[in-house]
């Protein structure tokens, strides 16, 4: 998911229209998260099928959703996350997949498919691309200095004001995403993470307000750079983003060491799904593209590159050891059992959540 470099939503719509005008039949317009694919996959796809890929990237579900709801995006394949996908299906944004054109669907992993069916009943509109968790990324050395521990294993580090006070100096970032943070706070409190009860949400709000003074910034992509450069010591963020920060820090070789943990209390699990907009112009090519991504060797190549788990069972035999055996990417069964998902909120709860979130973020 969200492998983003700041405001990297370079929207080259104009070029898409230009391309589609020239090569009317053999083109597919893909809109995916930034830094979320090994480019050679796109080249190989064109070599194998003769379909040209026009690839464009975004860095937030909100941007994608706003474009989809406005309609006429010109994209043939898009990659929204579970809860967003569910609402977009309801709004009539997508068309049903033609399973006859997707023979590789037999490679998919039933464990993931059962979860994604909660957003997309019978997986009629989408197939899984990648999935991951929302956990804690931290600077190992700075955490040692501030807290005197070698590793973090509990959400207590983030949700206990005493511990956060100690981290105030070195800096904490948190995702600016209420639908991720509020359920996590609920899970820490031992409540149902997917609760819609206003009393529960108020409890989560109180908890978050108590640590608010020690959060330097709420932002959904800047923490990658901030972690990698050693500007902050901890971020609540998405697994793959933290791995990306870890790799950048290792490349820079400035002594910054980043680690990611799924805390013992559990963490939210999310799914990025490949789907075809209802008004897509190249439906056959879009199916060909999705089918290609579901090839075991292609899915494995993608995961080996982006460090996210995929929903493709057959690809697991082909994954690098460091990906498959990393419990932060492919959690063991005990951790897996503690992961939770949240379903989209109804409009009334959504307003409540947004209101709470604004209160928390602005500290008003």
């Amino acid at each position, binding site marked *: 998911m969200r492998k983003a470099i700041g405001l990297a939503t370079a929207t080259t719509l104009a070029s898409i229209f230009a391309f589609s005008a020239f090569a009317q039949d053999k083109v597919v317009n893909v809109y995916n998260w930034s830094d979320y694919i090994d480019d050679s996959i796109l080249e190989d796809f064109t070599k194998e099928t003769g379909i040209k890929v026009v690839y464009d990237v975004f860095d937030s579900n909100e941007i994608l959703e*706003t474009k989809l709801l406005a309609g006429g995006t010109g994209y043939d394949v898009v990659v929204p996350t579970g809860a967003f996908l569910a609402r977009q299906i309801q*709004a009539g944004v997508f068309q049903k997949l033609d399973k006859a054109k997707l023979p590789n669907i037999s490679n998919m992993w039933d464990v993931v498919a059962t979860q994604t069916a909660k957003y997309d009943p019978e997986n009629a509109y989408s197939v899984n691309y990648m999935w991951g968790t929302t956990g804690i990324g931290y600077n190992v050395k700075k955490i040692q200095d501030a807290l005197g521990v070698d590793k973090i294993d509990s959400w207590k580090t983030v949700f206990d004001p005493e511990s956060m006070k100690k981290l105030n100096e070195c800096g904490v970032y948190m995702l600016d995403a209420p639908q991720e943070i509020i359920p996590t706070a609920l899970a820490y409190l031992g409540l149902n993470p997917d609760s819609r009860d206003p009393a529960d949400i108020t409890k989560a709000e109180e908890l978050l307000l108590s640590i608010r003074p020690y959060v330097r910034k709420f932002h959904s992509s800047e923490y990658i750079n901030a972690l990698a450069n050693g500007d902050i010591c901890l971020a609540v963020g998405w697994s793959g983003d933290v791995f990306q920060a870890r790799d950048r820090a290792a490349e820079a070789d400035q002594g910054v060491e980043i680690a990611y943990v799924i805390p013992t209390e559990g963490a939210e699990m999310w799914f990025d799904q490949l789907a075809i907009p209802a008004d897509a112009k190249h439906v056959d090519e879009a199916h060909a593209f999705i089918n290609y991504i579901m090839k075991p060797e292609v899915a494995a190549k993608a995961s080996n590159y982006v460090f996210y788990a995929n929903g493709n069972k057959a690809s697991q035999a082909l994954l690098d050891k460091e990906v498959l055996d990393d419990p932060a990417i492919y959690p063991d069964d005990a951790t897996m059992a503690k992961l939770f998902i949240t379903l989209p909120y109804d*409009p009334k709860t959504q307003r409540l959540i947004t209101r709470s979130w604004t209160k928390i973020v602005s500290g008003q």
Partner: protein
Amino acid sequence: MAETTLATAPSASPAAVPQQGTWLAALTGRLVIIIPYAWLLILFLVPFLIVFKISLSQTAIAMPPYSPTFDLSAGITGLWESFREFSFDNYLWLTDDPLYVNAYVSSVVIAAISTFFALLIGFPIAYGMARAPATVRPLLLMLVILPFWTSFLIRVYAWIGILKPEGLLNQFLIWTGIIDQPLIILNTHTAIFIGIVYSYLPFMVLPLYSALEKMDYSLIEAAQDLGCPPISAFWKITFPLAMPGIVAGCLLVFIPATGEFVIPDLLGGSQTLMIGKTLWNEFFSNRDWPVSSAVAVILLLMLVVPMMFFQQAQAKAQEQGR
């Protein structure tokens, strides 16, 4: 700005040309006026009406995410039904929640403080430019405009590198021994002021420069000859003569700064409440197009109405001056 609009209107009445010529001139005169009006109508009024229409709708899980939408196939009765669904609920919602009022107020305060500092810094720059030898002036003017050659976004991003705890500024201050702990400037209001003043300084300097350049400096010499001290000469002569430039510069900084989104998003912290960011949140995170449209309409009224009064006052003052 007011002067230019006033100047275009009466230009098409040359009295001394022959009969046919006057007729043609009148026609071209009309056409010339039509162009700016058409521009305003198509690029300002129509989009505004669309936004206003959305602000009267309700959110819906649909494409586009609000209802009612105009469906021309439903005929006149269908349109009438749509009209009846409109309501001002979204505007009531804005008054209902202190969040929006706070955001408006804090935007205006931040913009006002930034404008003040831009004036404080911009005036000496413009004054220095206007008093520089005429041969150097084009170069100085060029230097003021030069930053526009780089993307605004990249220039704001560069400030992150300068202001962050381990950034250039802190490294420099620690190196000189002025401080021993890095200052936390990034993600605070200070960073926003720096960002706005930096980004909008050219808009302050240019009108000030054009006002000061026209000034007759023999007036200052005359004041000094008559025994007026320099400071008092500044307040009595330079300042009033620079007034049109000051007003234009302040408006050019204040108005865009009020609705600024990029600078508070990149340099500000999460506690910064600005209306541009609130609008973004309503539109993208909350998918509430109607409420965000209502926020935009109010913002526009807040900025346009004072401007109109100001223009009128200025036009009156000019009439009286003649």
